C-alpha cells in the first residue's frame, strides 16, 4: 500500500468519526444491528458451516488433480466435453477467485476458444463450494439450489451464444504449447479421494442439519436427533482415513491450504457482515437504509425489480462470499426472491474491475456482449424463479 493511500484512509476514518451523528437514534440502531448480525453469524454459521466448508475447499485445492480437468480445455478437446467441464469445473478450480482470470485468458488465447472460456469465466466464481454452501445455509436451500443450477445452465448458454455470435473471430486461434499443472502421483485411488471428500461433505451436511418443523414426523426428526452422533462417527472415520491413506506432508499442505482460505476470506466476510448489518439490519429489524426504499426498488417480482437487481449485481464488486450477508439484509428489508436470484446470478461473476480485465483480454465489444447476455438471462431467471417459487 502506498503512503498516500494510507493517509487518505486515515483522513476518511477521521472525517467519519468526526461528522457522522453517532448519537442519532437511527445510527445507534444501525450500529447495534451490525454487531447483532455479526453475532448471528458467529453463533449460527461459523462452526457448523464455514469451518467444515473451508476444510473441504482446502482439500479440493490440494488433493483434486487440476491437470485432469484442464486437459479438456486444450485446443483439440472435444467441444461438448469442453462446455460440460467448463460449466461445472468452477467447483474444483476456482476456490480462489484469483485463479479464474489467468485461466480464462489461457483458455481463450491458447485453448478451446471463446465459448468454453466464457462458460468457465461465468461459472467459476458462481459455483465454488464455499459460495453454494453459504447460500444454501443462510438464504435457504431453494435459493442455493437455484443458484447452482442457474450457474451451470447460464455458463453453457453464455458460452454457446458467445461462440455463435463471434464465430468468425474464433477461426484465427493460434495453437502452441500449453502447460497444465503437474499431476502428482499420490498413491491413492480416485475412489479413496472421493470417499475422503464425500465424508467431509457429509460432516458439513449433518453438522448444519436444520431443526425440522415441530410437527414433522418420520425421517427428518430422527436424523436431527442423531445428528451429533453421526457427525462424531464421521469425524472418527475421517481421522482413520487421514492416518491410513495420507502422508504427514499431505496433511500439512491440506491444513496450510485451509488456513490460507480462512485468512483470505474471514476478514472480508467480517467486514461484509458488519456493513450489511449497518446498512440493512437483520431480517425484520430496520437499520440505516429505510425498508420502503428497498421494497420500492427491489420488492415483488416486476421486470423492473429484476432488471435493477441484475444490473446492480453486474457492476457491483462483491468480495468472495460477501454477497450472502448483503443479500440476507436485502431480503430481510423486503427484496423479492426473484430479484435476489437475479442478483446472485449476475453478481459474483461480474464486477466493474473484473470487466476491465476481461475487456483487456477479449476486447470491448465481446465484453459488452458477454455482460449483456448475463444481465438479460439473470433478469429472466429472476422472473421465472419469483413467479414459480415463492
Amino acid at each position, binding site marked *: 500500500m502506498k503512503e498516500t493511500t494510507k493517509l487518505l484512509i486515515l483522513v476518511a476514518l477521521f472525517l467519519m468519526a468526526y461528522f457522522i451523528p453517532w448519537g442519532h437514534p437511527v445510527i445507534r440502531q444501525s450500529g447495534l444491528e451490525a454487531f447483532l448480525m455479526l453475532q448471528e453469524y458467529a453463533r449460527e454459521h461459523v462452526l457448523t458451516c464455514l469451518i467444515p466448508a473451508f476444510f473441504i475447499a482446502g482439500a479440493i485445492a490440494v488433493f483434486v488433480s*487440476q491437470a485432469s480437468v*484442464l486437459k479438456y*480445455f486444450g485446443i483439440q478437446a472435444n467441444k461438448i466435453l469442453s462446455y460440460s467441464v467448463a460449466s461445472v469445473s468452477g467447483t474444483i478450480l476456482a476456490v*480462489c477467485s*484469483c*485463479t479464474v*482470470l*489467468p*485461466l*480464462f*485468458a*489461457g*483458455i*481463450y*488465447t*491458447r*485453448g478451446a476458444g471463446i465459448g468454453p472460456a466464457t462458460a468457465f469465466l461465468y461459472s467459476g466464481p458462481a459455483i465454488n463450494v464455499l459460495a453454494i454452501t453459504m447460500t444454501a445455509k443462510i438464504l435457504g436451500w431453494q435459493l442455493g439450489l437455484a443458484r447452482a443450477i442457474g450457474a451451470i445452465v447460464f455458463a453453457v448458454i453464455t458460452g454457446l451464444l458467445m461462440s455463435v455470435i463471434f464465430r468468425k473471430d474464433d477461426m484465427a486461434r493460434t495453437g*502452441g*504449447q*500449453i*502447460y*497444465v*499443472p*503437474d499431476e502428482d502421483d499420490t498413491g491413492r485411488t480416485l475412489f479413496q479421494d472421493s470417499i475422503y471428500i464425500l465424508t467431509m461433505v457429509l460432516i458439513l451436511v449433518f453438522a448444519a442439519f436444520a431443526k425440522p418443523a415441530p410437527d414433522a414426523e418420520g425421517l427428518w426428526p430422527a436424523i436431527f436427533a442423531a445428528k451429533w452422533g453421526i457427525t462424531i462417527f464421521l469425524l472418527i472415520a475421517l481421522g482413520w482415513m487421514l492416518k491410513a491413506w495420507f502422508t504427514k506432508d499431505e496433511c500439512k499442505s491440506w491444513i496450510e491450504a485451509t488456513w*490460507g482460505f480462512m*485468512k*483470505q476470506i474471514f476478514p472480508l466476510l467480517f467486514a461484509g457482515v458488519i456493513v450489511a448489518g449497518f446498512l440493512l439490519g437483520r431480517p425484520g429489524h430496520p437499520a440505516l437504509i429505510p425498508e420502503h426504499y428497498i421494497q420500492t426498488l427491489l420488492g415483488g417480482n416486476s421486470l423492473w425489480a429484476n432488471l435493477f437487481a441484475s444490473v446492480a449485481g453486474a457492476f457491483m464488486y462483491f468480495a468472495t462470499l460477501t454477497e450472502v450477508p448483503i443479500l440476507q439484509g436485502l431480503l430481510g428489508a423486503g427484496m423479492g426472491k426473484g430479484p435476489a436470484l437475479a442478483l446472485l446470478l449476475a453478481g459474483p461473476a461480474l464486477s466493474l474491475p473484473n470487466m476491465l*480485465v476481461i475487456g*483487456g*483480454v477479449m476486447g470491448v465489444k465481446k465484453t459488452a456482449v458477454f455482460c449483456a447476455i448475463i444481465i438479460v438471462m439473470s433478469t429472466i431467471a429472476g422472473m421465472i424463479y419469483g413467479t414459480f417459487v415463492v
Partner: protein
Amino acid sequence: MEIKILGPGCPKCEQTAKIVAEAVAETGVQATVEKVTGVMEIAGYGVFGTPAVVIDGDVKCVGKIPKKEDVKSWLTQ
C-alpha cells in the same frame, strides 16, 4: 539466468516469489527475478494455472507453490 514468476498477485504468487528469492540467495546463482502480473502476458506463456515459474523461457512449474529444494535444483542445473 532469467526467472519469471507468473501470477496476478494472489497470496500464493507472493509466497512463490518469496521461495524463489530465497532459493536464489541460498544457491548464489546470478539471476534476475521478475514478476509477471498481466493476465494476457501470463496467457502468452501458455500457462493454465498460476502461480507458475519460468526459468530462461522454460515453464518449470504450474498451478502450485514450488518446494524450495525443487527451485534450487532448477537453478543449479
